[in-house]
């Protein structure tokens, strides 16, 4: 059924409001009622009642059901968002997370009564360490950016413990925006390192910047142009020669599971996005989880508490004097840890290797089918994502943004646009391993159709999207004059 069968419920819940309409009725109390207002100091009382919507229960149900039908997600459509790994979230993960021993466990349950959850966390940390070639893993960070923050703070604590004053962190110009943001927030000066046209680190430029004041180099592998960094071992060795630590942004881990390991490439720290690589919900279905792994020399600095195993008993170790401290309420987003654990156990080592093989194969299939129609940012073969450019279409007045909008009409979510920043009119496609050849073909057919339209019928592209609940939004005006709350019409 089309989503537009109930436009009545397109309105905001406030606009559905009718004075006096209620979603509940309670029996008269049979005990004396004491007015709560009389017990609360006048300064804390509202002068007038809150303007809450007055709607029936059925209105509420229809309103939110309709909103859910307008949702676009991996459960309904292909979602080729580059660098974000929007892959299928297997339902068995949800079953496992709802087992009462996990789903109904109170976060303040003492360790002796939460052995199952602690055992799972201990094992998951061990599995992530094995997958990444790291020595120890903290599961606490709530997302990739917080994993980065934890990693950079540990690097800072490590240098401080050695009595070294290092003030700069190097970041490639192709980096995810979170890398320089994290670094600046941790108190470091961010220095940009140049990339070659194919998105690789310009090693000479890196060498120029390395020195006794550099604390770390942060880099995404494979890089954001979807290519494996061919000189990565040389890069980590050069950094270490200058006493700098090397951080791997794990956003693109989906490309290398079981193929290579950050620890073996010389990295000292890396984070994992469980909501990307390890199939926990990504986006509105979150929250996320961004565990961080370190080599042994950084282990004393891990966030507290660390899950420990003593014989068959699991516990929480808070006595870690060098720790950077606590990062998250309770023990992290434990429900996500259960899902990631379930995924790793379901797939097994060979299965995870097949994930990366197929993710890389799918991206190369898309790149090959589209390379005659769009410019390719860096010559392939690529890893798990490919970066195209709408440079050619721009000559006909069609930008990457226009291509993205037109794709919505053709039934696909848009790839990442205008990232990485070093590619003009970038369109970054990450199909993931979970899509069939039929879906990839349908997506490529749509992209090819748009490339043809750019040459023959630009108006249909510029009018897009026409099939979505809202048409093309005025992004500039939305950013300049944000309308952040509903107000009743005067």
């Amino acid at each position: 059924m089309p989503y537009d069968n109930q436009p009545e419920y397109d309105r905001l819940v406030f606009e559905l409001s009718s004075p006096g309409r209620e979603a509940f009725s309670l029996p008269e109390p049979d005990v004396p009622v004491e007015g709560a207002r009389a017990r609360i100091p006048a300064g804390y009382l509202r002068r007038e009642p809150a303007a809450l919507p007055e709607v029936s229960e059925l209105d509420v149900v229809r309103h939110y059901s309709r909103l859910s039908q307008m949702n676009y997600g991996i459960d309904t459509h292909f979602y080729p968002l580059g660098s974000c790994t929007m892959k299928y979230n297997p339902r068995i993960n949800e079953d496992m997370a709802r087992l009462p021993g996990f789903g109904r466990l109170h976060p303040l349950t003492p360790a002796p009564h939460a052995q199952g959850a602690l055992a799972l966390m201990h094992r998951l940390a061990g599995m992530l360490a094995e997958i990444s070639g790291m020595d120890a893993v903290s599961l606490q960070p709530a997302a990739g950016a917080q994993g980065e923050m934890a990693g950079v703070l540990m690097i800072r604590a490590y240098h401080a413990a050695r009595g070294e004053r290092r003030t700069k962190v190097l970041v490639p110009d192709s980096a995810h925006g979170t890398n320089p943001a994290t670094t600046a927030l941790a108190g470091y000066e961010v220095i940009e390192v140049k990339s070659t046209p194919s998105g690789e680190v310009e090693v000479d430029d890196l060498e120029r910047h390395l020195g006794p004041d550099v604390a770390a180099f942060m880099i995404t592998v494979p890089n954001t142009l979807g290519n494996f960094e061919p000189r990565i071992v040389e890069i980590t060795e050069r950094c270490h020669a200058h006493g700098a630590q090397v951080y791997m942004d794990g956003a693109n881990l989906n490309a290398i599971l079981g193929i290579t390991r950050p620890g073996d490439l010389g990295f000292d720290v890396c984070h994992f996005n469980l909501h990307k690589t390890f199939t926990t919900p990504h986006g509105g279905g979150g929250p996320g989880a961004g565990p961080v792994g370190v080599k042994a020399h950084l282990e004393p600095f891990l966030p507290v508490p660390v899950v420990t195993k003593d014989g068959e008993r699991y516990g929480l170790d808070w006595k870690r004097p060098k720790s950077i401290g606590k990062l998250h309420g309770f023990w992290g987003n434990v429900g996500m840890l259960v899902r990631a654990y379930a995924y790793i156990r379901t797939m097994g080592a060979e299965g995870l290797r097949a994930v990366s093989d197929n993710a890389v194969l799918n991206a190369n299939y898309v790149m090959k089918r589209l390379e005659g129609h769009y410019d390719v940012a860096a010559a392939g073969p690529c890893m798990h994502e490919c970066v195209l450019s709408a440079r050619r279409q721009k000559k006909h007045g069609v930008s990457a943004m226009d291509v993205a909008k037109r794709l919505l009409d053709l039934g696909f979510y848009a790839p990442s646009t205008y990232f990485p920043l070093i590619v003009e009119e970038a369109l970054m496609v990450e199909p993931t391993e979970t899509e069939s050849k039929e879906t990839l073909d349908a997506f490529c057919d749509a992209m090819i159709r748009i490339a043809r339209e750019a040459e023959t019928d630009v108006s249909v592209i510029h009018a897009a999207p026409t099939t979505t609940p809202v048409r093309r939004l005025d992004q500039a005006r939305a950013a300049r004059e944000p309308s952040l709350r509903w107000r009743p019409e005067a």
Partner: protein
Amino acid sequence: MRVGITAFAQEQLGDVVFVELPKVGARVTAHQAFGVVESVKAVSDLFAPVTGEVVEVNPELASKPEIVNQDPYGKGWMLVVQPADPGEWDGLLTSQQYEEFLAQDAH
């Protein structure tokens, strides 16, 4: 010296939605970031062409960032800088020289 971004830069950035500038009296250093320009596409550093002191900041940009797009070489100016070394002028390109540079780079 009046400082802003080029017509090419504003065209590449797309609609500018926010400009963050230093205060009057701040020092800027040649080739280093002095502020930030945010467009619907990306957030980018603004680089100083010369070293010197900020003596004036365009007050209009806070409420009307779109004038950077409309008139980058006129009303969309960002700072007036008193250069520490007036000789730094000589190292800069004119807008015409810059366009020639871009044309060479475009193939």
